[in-house]
């Protein structure tokens, strides 16, 4: 495998030629914020949190998609990027109904973490207060669409790790929604194996396990990571 060298934030980094900027940065210990990305799943490119600046190009590129190339010079932290990331988080808070204080995922939520990391201490945009539903029809899990950020991690996990493809997206724009099977109640889904991987992958409290209350829920991401490790690196030890 050929190796390329590039510069990320002024630091020389070597990477495999087919790696993405995100992979190269993470293996070099440089963190780039992400929301829709999950290691081991196909990249989505929707959250735009991992946008980086590449020298010589005006266009911001998603690090999760953009492949490294020889001599590339990448900057992951600039004032512009910091401001845009903060605005993305503000947009997410404004478009859904996110109330941390009454959420099962409080203190265990990637959206909350991102808000803290980007320094979003108040909302500059107008809350839209959409009317969204809660589906509690599944015996073990529930989905509260008010907390969904449409990252499609559940969709990709279900399709690529579990192989069930129970989840998908319906509608478009602000009325997009993740659905189970043919937009029927989750409990009536015939393809769902009740494996719980969608719940493990969910960054917020949108998909939750029943029987947990405010700030009690943990996603059990380690299990997902174990599966990804097993698949990607053929490592079976925990």
């Amino acid at each position, binding site marked *: 495998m050929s190796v390329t060298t590039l510069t990320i934030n002024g630091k020389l980094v070597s990477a495999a030629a087919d790696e993405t900027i995100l992979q190269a940065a993470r293996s070099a210990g440089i963190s780039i914020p992400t929301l829709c990305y999950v290691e081991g799943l196909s990249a*989505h*490119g*929707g*959250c*735009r949190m991992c*946008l980086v600046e590449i020298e010589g190009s005006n266009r*911001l*590129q*998603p690090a999760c*998609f*953009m*492949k490294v190339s020889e001599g590339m010079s990448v900057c992951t932290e600039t004032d*512009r990027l910091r*401001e*845009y990331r903060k*605005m*993305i988080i503000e*947009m*997410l808070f*404004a*478009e859904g109904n996110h109330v941390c204080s009454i959420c099962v995922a409080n203190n265990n939520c990637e959206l909350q973490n991102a808000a803290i990391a980007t320094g979003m201490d108040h909302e*500059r*945009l*107008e809350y*839209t207060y959409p009317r969204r539903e809660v589906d509690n029809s599944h015996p073990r899990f529930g989905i509260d669409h008010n907390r969904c*950020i*449409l990252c499609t991690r559940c969709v990709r996990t279900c399709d690529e790790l579990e192989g069930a493809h129970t989840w*998908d*997206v319906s*509608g*478009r*724009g*602000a*009325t*997009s929604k993740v659905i189970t099977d043919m937009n029927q109640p989750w409990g009536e889904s015939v393809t769902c194996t009740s494996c719980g991987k969608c719940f493990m992958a969910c960054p917020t409290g949108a998909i939750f396990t029943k029987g947990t209350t405010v700030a009690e829920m943990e996603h059990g991401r380690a299990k997902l990571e174990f599966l990804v490790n097993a698949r990607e690196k053929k490592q079976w030890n925990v």
Partner: protein
Amino acid sequence: MDLNELHRIAAKERERRLPRQIRCCIAAGCLSARSDVVLAQLQDTVNQAGLTEQVHVAGVGCMRLCSQGPLVQIDPDAACYQRVTPENARSIVSGLAGGEVQAEPLDLDHPFFKLQTTVVLENFGKIEPERIETYIEAGGYEALHHVIYELEPAGVIETITKSGLRGRGGAGYPTGIKWATVAKHASERKYVVCNADEGDPGAFMNRSVLESDPHRVLEGMAIAGYAIGANQGYIYVRGEYPLAIERLKKALAQAGRLGLLGSGIFSSPFDFRIDIRIGAGAFVCGEETALMASLMGGRGTPTPRPPYPAEKGLWGMPTLLNNVETFANISTIIRKGPEWFASIGTPKSTGTKVFCLTGKVANTGLVEVTLGTPLRTIVEQIGGGVPGGTIKAVQTGGPSGGCIPAELLDTPVDYDSLGKIGSIMGSGGMIVMDQNTDMVDVARFFMEFCMDESCGKCIPCRAGTVQMHRLLKRIIAGEADRDDLERLEKLCAMVRDTSLCGLGQTAPNPTTSTLRYFRHEYEARLKNSAEGKGSKHPIAPSVSHAGQGERSA
């Protein structure tokens, strides 16, 4: 099928020609004004008068001046009639024998026609879209024969490169370079895709081409297939164009039957098959990666580029994607030579461009002009200006474009000049706005369009358009303050820079361009502003109230 047979079909068609032809437009615009009934009346009258040996009545493609339809033209007399009704259609036939014609005559020497240069529309109003013979008579499919037997694929690409043709979908990427890139990628399968998912409000160029001269597009695609080494083509056409789909299907069947498409075209080893794929009504599917996702049966959402379709397109194979109008230029370039094409227009924007002139303008319809024509010529001379009013702005490029103020009407219409003044060439929508137009409402209209059409995949476009739309509504309602305006500008920059595909990246354009040229209309409505004090109608017409509350686009 060989060249002789092609010529035989053309000769037979010429022999069939009667001394006189009555041509009636049967494209969508005139059809909606009952041109099908007019056509039936004309045919019926000719039959009754026993003139079937002297007069041929034909339903032809678009004659361009859509606002005056149904249009009927008589050749070789070169007489033309506008707004023909089923009632006065009969008098046109009796007029041939010297009777009085009740239909309203139309002057073919009008600047609307005289100032146009037709390349893509050269057969418009002449050939019958549902009869391949008429296209062949006009020289159709000779270019395809020429490239297969006289040119190497590389030679075809060189011809297109030399012509300077740029993508007519709006972005203006050099077509020759695109073809060369796809040709370079070695692959056992490659695809040619024609983007006919025309969705800009007020744009119907591609629709007219498909309805009036479908074979031109098929021939262009087949030539592209030969040049890049593809054997399969797809036309992705929006479901809202049923007539275009019907005529394309007929055209495909006719071309297939004559051996002009399919296996062993012109008895050569070159195979090229074209299939139609129908879109389900999503504007975003005009974006190439979303189009391909939809074409493959998936959800029509875009994916980041690179990889570009030229490298990894349909089913991971190199794919050439061009707009209808781009393909429609190809056969003419091959027939008349790249030098001829390059001599039209400006050095960097060669050839012509078809526009749909709509809005507050006297003559609305299809307009094909050489690139570099001043905008003023198009809207004032060809379009005839605003009846009883003045031009305030011209919107080009649809929801991705901008509003060009009247002061800049002398700007030449080419890719680079329009880009410099904050608009884009776009696919060809051109909406003229008069003095009563509320520019903030124009921005709001286009923002609402983008908000409704956002696929929802990336956050800036999905949530950002909602926020911008809310701010624009607040400004219009007189409830916004200076901070809101600042926030709107910040959002515009952010959505432009961070969105995944062209839809989101260009969604702020109508807003930023109106902010650039009509900022006072925004500021006059802000709360606590010196000018407007939150007035809801700061530009309400002072003379008449005719335009109040009217929507401009």
